[in-house]
């Protein structure tokens, strides 16, 4: 039996007919939309390389069935920059060498954006490390990742202060 679903992906509405209910959001993004920035690492919810935002919350797209997410609003790494202007988290990862091979980076960036939305860690490096523990980096770029997130968090705090001033 075929199932129809609609998703908003990086601001654009997309309709799909699924002839197999086993398709995950990760495979849908990569195979049907060719949005290959979202990476398939472990495919079992352990590494975080597949992190995307669904309705503003970071999730592991490898453990989410597409069929169960009809109507969801999805943001992937391809949707975070504005044209040539990088998202502050992306720019901070470059400034602080928050990667080596780069495979985990889209997941790290999406997770950091999700974490800042959650507003639980603030600018405490220990809380940032804890809140980012769902994203593994086998090159071990963790020190640069934490520095990047700290800088991006600081920029966001400044922007918010300017807005409220």
């Amino acid at each position: 039996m075929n199932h129809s679903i609609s998703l908003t992906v990086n601001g654009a509405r997309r309709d799909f007919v699924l002839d197999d209910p086993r398709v995950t959001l990760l495979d849908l993004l990569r195979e049907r939309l060719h949005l290959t920035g979202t990476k398939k690492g472990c495919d079992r919810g352990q590494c975080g390389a597949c992190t995307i935002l669904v309705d503003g919350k970071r999730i592991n797209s490898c453990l989410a069935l597409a069929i169960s997410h009809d109507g969801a609003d999805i943001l992937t790494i391809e949707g975070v920059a504005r044209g040539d202007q990088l998202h502050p988290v992306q720019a901070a990862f470059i400034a602080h060498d928050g990667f080596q091979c780069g495979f985990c980076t889209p997941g790290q960036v999406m997770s950091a954006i999700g974490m800042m939305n959650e507003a639980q860690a603030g600018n405490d490096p220990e809380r940032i490390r804890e809140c980012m523990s769902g994203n593994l980096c086998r090159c071990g770029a963790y020190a640069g990742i934490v520095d990047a997130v700290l800088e991006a968090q600081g920029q966001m705090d400044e922007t918010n202060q300017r807005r409220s001033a």
Partner: protein
Amino acid sequence: MKRFDYVRPANVTEAVAAAARPGAVYLAAGTNLLDLMKGNISRPDRLVDFTHLEGLDAIERLADGSVRIGALVSNADLAHDADFARSYPAVAEALLSGASAQLRNVATVGGNLLQRTRCAYFYDTASRCNKREAGTGCDAREGENRTHAVFGWSESCIATNPSDFCVPLLALDAIVEIEGRNGRREIALEALHRLPGDTPERDTALEPGDLIVAVRLPPAARGFAGHARYLKVRERTSYAFAVVSAAAALRIDNGRIAEARLALGGVAAKPWRARAAEDVLKGVAPTADAFQEAAWRALTDAKPSGDNAFKIELARRIVVRALTLAAAGTPARLPALPASPFASTSGAIHA
């Protein structure tokens, strides 16, 4: 992954009917189920997706002082609910010590209760496992079993229940509301999970079609808010299952323990209540000696199931330390590393 039929029932009654059929299972967030399906450990014929049903995702304060948590409330939403975390701090700390932020954002209350063991032999389909496939044997019994059960195990199965959430819930006398083929009923959380005996393939007391719709904490559970902690030893600081954990909650009046609650995690096929330890703490001052005595009582009946005798001594020390932390008072804000004995702000000296 085996192919399955996917159904979206219109209401709870339809959901129960659909899930009561052989080979059917409920789908909530799927964070545990899809992992098991990808590994061919679970091979359901039909998924009954009830995530769109109304009325299952609320945190309600009831008039009698209870709290009722809908089965579809996410682990993160519950832990970050300010009033809930203030009233039941050990539950919030346990939730935030489990899994990763990505998983907690979707994993549900009901799903957390029903997550399956993390025994490596259960996960490895080339191994014999009575829980995965009844009657095949248990390769954990003579295998790598340093993290396995020290309470309530049998020759058929020495697996442990991996939930953090269930440990403080059990200490606080949580009640599980179930919708089944014969209507609504409720059972104590303590009666939800089963010990393995000769039938380890059955994790819980649930019958075909049974749907957990809510978890309730009774009015008395709020009385421990000032002195409640969860402590969890794991093999890395974050994003790991418990080797041993403990939830400790005290009600202290005039320098004496009016009532103590204690439960252990990672030690049995179910979260483990330590009532004998609670009894020796009643009416005494919260001293190191009293906590040592409680820890001995809590582990009296523990028995290694393999290369895991160390867990018994580890559990004693975690009990003492969790009680010490609870007696010192719930911190105003959860520590940066929830439930970690290595957190720089844990506030406890070595037990």
